[in-house]
């Protein structure tokens, strides 16, 4: 879990990772290595105050160079909200996130449809499944040019779509997207706020965190397809123990 100055939901994401049965490793934005983790989560918040554009400055944090390299090498990376903005600013994902069309911050329980249940982060869902997560953002409107949108749709790279009335003006109601390899996912709503029905709208977000453990377990015996992470993954010890997620 990468903490930038201004990250806010890092604690929540750490709790979610713990509930999924993995160990969260805190990484500081100024670090230059990923400390041997198996997956990375970029949490929500307002990194560096989001003063220039959301995610625009975080993109240049030292740790992001490592994250980008690892992601290109196949490491699972999930960017939530501000993390999604950072992934777009880093060009790991296409498009951009701009101010909500109604110009207000919005925080609400949001129904979503999972459109792609084959990514590293959505294995444990079924395609077409409806889930309720927390949506909270000021700059959450997903935009991209038509060609990009058509490509995302055509290649099945839309991970989740908003249901019901339009919460933020995203094109084609896109709530989350992935890369061709399915290891990098950017998601505007917050699955980490829906892992415990006491403090959130149900547990519909937990599969994001369990999915990645499954996919790591499945891929671990074979060497990963791309460049391994800088220090290589630790030996696998079952599905849930010994796994480390950077948050």
């Amino acid at each position: 879990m990468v903490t930038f100055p201004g990250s806010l939901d890092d604690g929540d994401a750490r709790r979610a990772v713990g509930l999924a049965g993995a160990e969260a490793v805190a990484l500081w934005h100024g670090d230059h290595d990923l400390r041997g983790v198996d997956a990375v989560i970029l949490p929500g918040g307002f990194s560096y105050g989001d003063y220039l554009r959301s995610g625009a400055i975080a993109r240049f944090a030292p740790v992001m160079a490592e994250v980008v390299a690892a992601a290109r090498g196949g490491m699972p990376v999930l960017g939530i909200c501000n993390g999604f903005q950072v992934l777009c600013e880093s060009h790991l994902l296409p498009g951009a996130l701009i101010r909500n069309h109604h110009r207000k911050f919005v925080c609400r329980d949001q129904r979503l449809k999972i459109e792609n249940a084959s990514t590293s982060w959505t294995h444990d869902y079924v395609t077409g499944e409806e889930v309720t997560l927390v949506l909270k953002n000021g700059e959450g409107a997903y935009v991209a040019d038509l060609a990009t949108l058509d490509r995302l749709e055509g290649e099945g790279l839309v991970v989740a779509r908003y249901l019901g009335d339009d919460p933020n003006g995203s094109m084609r109601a896109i709530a989350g997207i992935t890369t061709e390899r399915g290891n990098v996912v950017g998601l505007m709503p917050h699955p980490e706020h829906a892992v415990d029905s006491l403090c959130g709208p149900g547990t519909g977000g937990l599969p994001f965190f369990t999915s990645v453990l499954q996919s790591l377990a499945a891929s671990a015996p074979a060497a990963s397809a791309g460049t391994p992470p800088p220090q290589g993954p630790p030996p696998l010890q079952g599905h849930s123990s010994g796994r480390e997620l950077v948050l």
Partner: protein
Amino acid sequence: MTETQTRQLDTVAHAQEHPDVAQPWAELGLKSDEEAHLREILGRRPTSSELAMYSVMWSEHCSYKSSKVHLRRFGEQVTDAMRKHLMVGIGENAGVVDIGQGYAVTFKVESHNHPSYIEPYQGAATGVGGIVRDILSMGARPVAVMDALRFGPLEAPDTQRVLPGVVAGVGGYGNCLGLPNIGGETVFDPSYAGNPLVNALCVGVMRHEDIHLANASGTGNQIILYGATTGGDGIGGVSILASEAFDTQGSARRPSVQVGDPFMEKLLIECTLEVFAEHLVAGIQDLGGAGLSCATSELASAGDGGMHVWLDRVPLRDESLAPEEILMSESQERMMAVVEPAHVSRFLEICAKWDVDATVIGEVTDTGRLVIEWYGDTVVDVPPRTVASEGPVYERPFARPIWQDSLQAGDASTLPRPTTGEGLRATVLQLVASPNLCDKSWITNQYDRYVQGNTVLAQPEDAGILRVDEQSGLGIAVSTDCNGRFAKLDPFTGAQLALAESYRNVATAGARPLAVTDCLNFGSPEDPDVMWQFAEATRGLSQGCEALGIPVTGGNVSFYNQTGAEPILPTPVVGVLGVIDDVTRRTPIGFTTEGQQIYLLGTTRDELSGSEWAHVAHGHLGGLPPVVDLEMEAQLADLLINASRDGLIDAAHDLADGGLAQALVESCLRYDVGARVWLPDELDPFVALFSESTARVIVAVPRSEEVRFTDMCAARRFPHVRMGVTDGRGDDAVLEVQECFSVSLAELRAAWSATLPTAFDD
């Protein structure tokens, strides 16, 4: 050379040599007797820097000079029961309450009314920032915020300007800090047109051993200013904004508004908690209103009584600022710490890690004087207590207003009431759509209520509940309330009603009330009518707290809330903090399943004077407010807390504004579960539905627990009557009041939720 240095610097020596220089006493808000008193203290005229400090510190806002004699009640009437959980009381930045398991909680509500009128976004944002730093300076990690807002009529052009800005400001700042907003209130009344109220509350949690107090002890200890640089923000803001009613003309008098930087505040919080954790801090204070004037004089007064400050070391955003201006600047996101010399380098190291500027600007002395130097010249040399705590105190004249009797005589009994089922149905729909009772999610959806993952209940629940300990489930509940119309009808009772409602809300959610914070918003203290309202309200509140056995741990007074000669409704906002041993036992307001038995607890009387119905249907205000019965409130609270602990109730909702009808509507709409209810035979249906009698709640009891629940009520001799059952859910569900009317939840929701979007979305 800057302009500042080329102009004659008014040093102490210069003031002694030139005693007859004309100074802008009156413009700075000082009265002539205050001027004389100040000359007497110093034995000479003040330098212009001293004048700046005294004028701002002796202003109403900082000195509480009109309210002090009344606020003493809160300290004097503290019983052993009230002291039981109190670790730090009034006087510190915020009181501290023991909630058990080694945890302590600090909470406080503060006004930022006038700045929010001038610049709604920044005014509200910096209001949140200020109260958060207050909590932080007690050693606590801020964990949640709430906001109690009052605006003019919904349709007034000024409300259209002020409300969206205030809401965006509260949200913009709080969201960026990662603090969940767990509740609050939004009220509309014509008296707040041109004078909105923005009261921000913050709650912080710490371990017992981590309490930090604001004082500068230990001669030789270093004074470190850290956080944002100092600019021309809000110069004179506190004294000029808060001492006299302002108007929009005379822009020359309008001081520059403070601008907030929540990102800097977030860094300041993390940095401060880290220096606390390493025990590097001997004393600490936030810089809010009156900036350095306040921080230096208050820290020095509370410690060994002396401090030497090199003002030219203060990092500036604007190099042209004069020493007077630096002392008065209200630049946000600044803190001042007292640090032993051996810890200074580590302190500065931690600040550097968080990219927070930190500068040693002074040290603690044993001279008993606050001495401030500017490039080698002494510009301030004063006894600090005369600045901070020994300012003027007024016994303002007060008298019961001559109109009070006629106001109380014109009660609501003569107003035409609906008598048919159709009329009652129409009244329900009219009320749920009215500005004070409608769905507030247009506002609250702009606030992050989920961040930190510990929010168990948030708006629109009766109280916000936060989990404090994940293992044990220990949690806290907070509610803020005030009905200004009741307070106008009878300020003594009105303040107690605010207390009773807030107390009831906390208990309804399942928590045991422990402590009170208040934000007393009133008109001009120079108006004897207003001063009477204030005296009555503080008397009522302090007696109420004594009766309920919960202390006031801190708060704030805001005077001069008026437009022209017309003061606002007296608005003593009361926040109550409660503790809940196991947050999984919290009681939400919403009906969750079909077949739950609905009980009405408490006694309903014909009490409609000052009610929401009289206000909405007739624009009427007169008569006497509902009777307060604090003994009944305490019994009800105890019953609700035990019922929640024993798992006897699934939902509970307090009856307040709008009465039973509004409570039923809100409980049904929360999860789209309908209800079939019958009204008690002995009551007129209209009174049953719309009376605002106190000490009442509705509860939903699972059928399996009905016997145990009614046995409990009977054993306690608490009035209870079964009055309905939850029935139907989803789109087809209805709220049926048997033999009166039936209305679908869809129709109710449409009326309830359209009001704010219609008013504010373009």
